[in-house]
């Protein structure tokens, strides 16, 4: 058995496929229950019940919605570029999924524990803009077009400050490997010494995933639904699921970069009994709850305010903080010299 799985090519392929499914299946379930959880939490905050009819406590609501979406007609507008129109949701969903290949769930447990993990995540999340731009363009509808433009401009604006925040983490860690980044937080999680960066990262993550209060691309009152106004059935569903999957991904990134990933909060007995993946899941759930909480609390930003915040507040601030971090590490001689895994 061991001989087959670890020493033959076919065995390795089977093993990898199983590993991928072990991430993807729970991930899809998590998305289903995130949608349910969001509706329940929003309901509780607004003193209503939320979904409560399908299954006990409405637990099967998302599956009912999914089946309904599956059996709906896929409307392809006559003015649309058919191939691009269908490519856009496909691309969005695939990109939302493949980022998970490098997320470590325990010490060294990642499907691909590559030494440029952060770069991979950054690249994949940057590609997400394409799905939205293609959807906005291919639909050949004015609302979709404007929504796509707005969404793309918003995502790229906040990506710059996300990048600078990540660079200041890298300065402290000295490695692009996600596992090394978590191990560097053994003594103190980065959310404490880098609190301002943590706040910027969280807010940028909201903007990057087009979540409230930055959900302008789909501002119902002005653009109906933004870039996916023409989509129906599971073509729409893929955008929807992709957005929620991106939310979970950004929460996982926040947990890994700032909240110590799979590390226990204190390195003492009762905490270390709980296995790493559980801690990671708890942290992701906490960040996700913040996402939903923010949505229920804050009104939507105006577009000019959004751009001002991104370019005139976050960008200079994160740049200055990054330089200060580098200068501080340089002056105190606390820079990491080599990484655990060795870069390159």
């Amino acid at each position, binding site marked *: 058995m061991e001989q087959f799985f670890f020493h033959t090519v076919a065995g390795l392929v089977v093993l990898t496929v199983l590993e991928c499914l072990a991430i993807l299946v729970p991930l899809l379930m998590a998305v289903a229950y995130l949608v349910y959880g969001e509706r329940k939490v929003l309901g509780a905050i607004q003193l209503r019940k939320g979904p409560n009819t399908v299954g006990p406590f409405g637990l099967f609501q998302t599956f009912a919605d999914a089946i309904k979406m599956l059996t709906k007609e896929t409307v392809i507008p006559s003015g649309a570029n058919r191939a691009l129109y269908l490519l856009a949701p*496909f691309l969005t*969903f695939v990109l939302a999924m493949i980022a998970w*290949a490098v997320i470590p769930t325990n010490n060294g447990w990642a*499907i*691909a524990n590559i030494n440029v993990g952060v770069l991979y995540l950054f690249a994949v999340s940057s590609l997400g803009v394409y799905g939205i731009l293609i959807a906005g363009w291919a639909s*050949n509808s004015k609302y979709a077009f404007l929504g796509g433009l707005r969404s793309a401009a918003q995502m790229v604006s906040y990506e*710059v400050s996300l*990048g*600078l925040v990540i660079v200041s983490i890298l300065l402290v860690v000295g490695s692009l490997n996600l596992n090394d980044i978590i191990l560097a937080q053994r003594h103190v999680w980065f959310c404490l010494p880098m609190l301002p960066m943590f706040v910027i990262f969280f807010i940028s993550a909201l903007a990057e995933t087009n979540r409230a209060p930055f959900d302008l691309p789909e501002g119902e009152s002005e653009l109906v639904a933004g870039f996916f106004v023409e989509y129906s059935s*599971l073509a729409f569903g893929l955008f929807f699921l992709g957005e929620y999957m991106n939310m979970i991904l950004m929460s996982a990134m926040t947990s890994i970069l700032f909240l110590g990933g799979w590390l226990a909060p204190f390195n003492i007995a009762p905490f270390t009994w709980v296995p790493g993946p559980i801690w990671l899941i708890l942290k992701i759930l906490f960040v996700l709850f913040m996402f939903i909480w923010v949505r229920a609390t804050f009104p939507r930003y105006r577009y000019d305010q959004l751009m001002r915040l991104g370019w005139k507040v976050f960008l200079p601030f994160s740049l200055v903080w990054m330089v200060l971090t580098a200068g501080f590490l340089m002056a105190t001689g606390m820079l990491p010299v080599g990484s655990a895994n060795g870069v390159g």
Partner: protein
Amino acid sequence: MALSPRVATPSSEFRHTMQNLLSAYFPIAVFIVIAAGVSAAMLGGSLLAGRQKPYAEKNSAYECGFDAFDDARRRFDVRFYLVAILFIIFDLEVAFLFPWAISLGRIGLFGFWSMLGFLGVLTVGFIYEWRKGALDWE
């Protein structure tokens, strides 16, 4: 002349590194294939499962009940273009910063001040943009 396989010639070392790289990235390739399969199955499934009954009215672009006035691909605000250009500049900067941040411990003060010079030039440009109002949306 038979080389013993133990001798590390440059080519065998290179092959070894390549193999390590390939085996590190192979799971990502598998993951992409599976993800693409899942997405395609969902899209195709809904195309098959849903009853397709298109007609001209239904397939026209949505515009609050009006017939679409003209093509949606028209001129748009130049500011979006400006944002795209600014994004390229700053994202490139971030791309430069990644390797610098990793190796700062090894390149020392010289590396530090070189990057600071680069950032200084960029900051001057940024201040210029700000003054010119390229970042204003009213």
